[in-house]
């Protein structure tokens, strides 16, 4: 059984989705049995590619759309959405 889940999240971190969270995001995405894609309104990119995630230039306040397909779709969206909405204090 496969389901598709789609939901938008707003980037909370002051620094935006920079390299470290993007790496975390890609790692996390790889743990679910689901294909997750990300978009900021235009092109959909793979959630497992740090290069693609960084190319979105998702700064604080950017709305990111997540779309997941597969048995773990709902869980993947929830986990990845939480990461996007996680505030991060500047190092």
């Amino acid at each position, binding site marked *: 059984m496969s389901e598709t889940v789609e939901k938008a999240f707003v980037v909370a971190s002051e*620094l935006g*989705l920079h390299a*470290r969270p993007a790496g975390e995001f890609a790692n996390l995405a790889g743990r679910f049995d689901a294909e997750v894609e990300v978009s900021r309104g235009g092109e959909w990119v793979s959630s497992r590619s*740090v290069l693609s995630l*960084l*190319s*979105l230039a998702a*700064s604080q306040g950017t709305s990111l759309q997540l779309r997941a397909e597969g048995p773990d779709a709902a869980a993947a969206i929830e986990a990845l959405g939480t990461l996007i909405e996680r505030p991060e204090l500047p190092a």
Partner: protein
Amino acid sequence: MKIMDILVKDAVILDIESQEKDAVLLELAKRLAAAEPVLDEERLHKVLIEREALQSTGIGDGVAIPHGKLPGLSRLVASFARSKAGVDFQSIDGQKTHLFFLLVVPEHSGGQHLKALARISRFFRDASFRKALEEASSTEDVLRAIEEEDGKF
């Protein structure tokens, strides 16, 4: 922001000698500091090591973007290096890293930092760009490939 505007041309390394991660970071820091005297080699090397300790900047597809913040710096500075043999950079996909893009940013440059990372990432997502860098036979070839990509968007 154009990458050519932040790239320190004299710091480009066509074939990096170092074969392991810390040595690569040192060689990158050394070359960039030599070409850009405003940078202190030791401090630069230290911030790069500290950043890698948090998480490898080896982001897959043979690409790494080592980066760090340096207090006192007034603008973004970048360099490029290539390793023919490849380096174990503990990259996210476990593959060896061949292309290194070093980015040094001022301490409070959140927006600029993110934009530079995004632009560099868009370049490197393009397989034909990666191939052009892998096959470059001179520093001029490298600069030409970057300049061409800069002109696309």
